[in-house]
C-alpha cells in the first residue's frame, strides 16, 4: 500500500526545524549513511533504513533521484527474517540428537540446550532471506509537512527515530491536539478554553 497504490493509508507529520542550505545536499547527506544494508548474508534478524522510491531493492540516492517537483520522495525499508518456530524446533531436535550421539551422554544441561538453540537460530538466520517491507514518504520541505504511507505502529516509530538520526529534525504526528496547536488559529482566549475542554455528553 504505497504512495501510488490504488488504495493507501496515511499518517501526517509536521517537521520541526530546517536543514542547512543547500537543502538537497543536506537531505542526500542524511539519506546516504542511513541507507538500508542487506542482511541476507549475515546473522542479523532485522534491518531498517532509507531506500529509493523507484528502486527499493537497489537503494541509491545518486542524481537527486529523491527530488520530484517541490517534494522529497523516498522510502523506509524494514527487513525482517522470520523463522517459523516449528522449523527451529525441527533443527534443534536434529542438532540435539547429533550432540548426544557425539558425546555419548543421555541429556544436555539447561545451559547447553540454550546455547544449542542460539546456534540453531544463527544458522537458520544465515540461510533464510529477509522479508522486506517498504513504506513510502513524501516530504514537502517548504510546508514542513510529511506524509508517511502507513498507519502501522512499528514503521511509524522507526520513521520518527530514523528521521531524527538522519536529519536532526523532529517529526510531530498530527492528531487532534497537535492539529489544534499548529493549525487551529485560536485566539489566546479560545486556546485557554480548548486546553480546559472536557468531553461532551450527548446523552438524553
Amino acid at each position, binding site marked *: 500500500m504505497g504512495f501510488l497504490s490504488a488504495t493507501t493509508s496515511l499518517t501526517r507529520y509536521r517537521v520541526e526545524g530546517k536543514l542547512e542550505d543547500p537543502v538537497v545536499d543536506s537531505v542526500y547527506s542524511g539519506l546516504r549513511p542511513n541507507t538500508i544494508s542487506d542482511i541476507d548474508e549475515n546473522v542479523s534478524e532485522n534491518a531498517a533504513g532509507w531506500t529509493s522510491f523507484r528502486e527499493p531493492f537497489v537503494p541509491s540516492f545518486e542524481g537527486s533521484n529523491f527530488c520530484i*517537483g517541490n517534494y522529497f520522495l523516498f522510502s523506509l525499508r524494514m527487513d525482517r527474517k522470520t523463522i517459523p518456530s516449528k522449523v527451529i524446533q525441527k533443527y534443534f531436535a536434529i542438532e540435539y540428537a547429533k550432540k548426544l550421539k557425539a558425546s555419548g551422554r543421555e541429556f544436555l544441561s539447561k545451559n547447553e540446550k540454550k546455547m544449542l538453540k542460539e546456534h540453531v537460530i544463527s544458522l537458520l538466520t544465515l540461510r533464510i532471506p529477509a522479508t522486506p517491507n517498504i513504506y513510502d514518504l513524501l516530504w514537502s520541505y517548504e510546508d514542513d509537512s510529511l506524509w508517511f504511507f502507513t498507519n502501522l505502529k512499528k514503521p511509524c516509530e522507526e520513521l520518527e527515530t530514523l528521521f531524527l538520526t538522519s536529519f536532526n529534525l523532529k517529526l510531530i504526528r498530527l492528531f487532534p491536539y497537535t492539529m489544534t496547536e499548529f493549525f487551529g488559529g485560536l485566539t489566546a482566549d479560545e486556546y485557554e478554553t480548548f486546553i480546559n475542554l472536557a468531553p461532551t*455528553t*450527548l446523552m438524553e
Partner: protein
Amino acid sequence: MLDIAVAYNRYRFIGYEFLTWLWFAIERNPTLLQSPSGDSGSLSLGNRIVLENFTRDKTESITIKGDDPNVDAALLSLKNGALVTEINLVFKLNEQEWQFTLKGESFSITNLKTPQRGPVETLEDTEGAVLEQAFLLEQLLQYQDVLFNSFIHLRVSKEWGQTFIPEVKNWVSAP
C-alpha cells in the same frame, strides 16, 4: 505545548467529537461543510461508521457497514452517549471522488482511494504520477483541515453548547 503522549490521550475526545460533528453535518446541515472559498465539493457517508460509548464502566462499540448503511442503530447508540470514533467518507470535487476512512483519535487515514490518475508506462510517467497524486492528496487534506478548523472554532465557542448540542439531541430523538 503539552507532552505529546499525554496530549494524545487527554484530547482524543476532540477527534471523536469532530467525527460526530461531521456525521451530523452530512446528515442535517451540509452548509457546515463548505469552505470559505465555496468550492469545497461534497462530503457523504461511505460504507462504514464506528461508534464507541465511553460513558459506562466498559467501552461499548458498534460498527455499521455496507454500501448504503442503515444508521438507525448508530443513532440509537449516539442517543445513549456514544461518539463516532471512525468514519468512512466520500469526498467529491469537480467530478472527482476520494473515499477514505478517518480515525478520530489519531486522524490517521486508511483505505484511501484517490481519483483515477493517468497510466504510468515510462519512468517519466512516474514523475507526473507522483505530482498528480500529491496534488490529489493535498486537495483532500486541505479540505480536512478546513473542516477541522471550522469545528474547533465552534467547539471552543458558546454556540457549541447553546446551539449545536441541542440540534444533535433533536436529531437523535427525531422519530
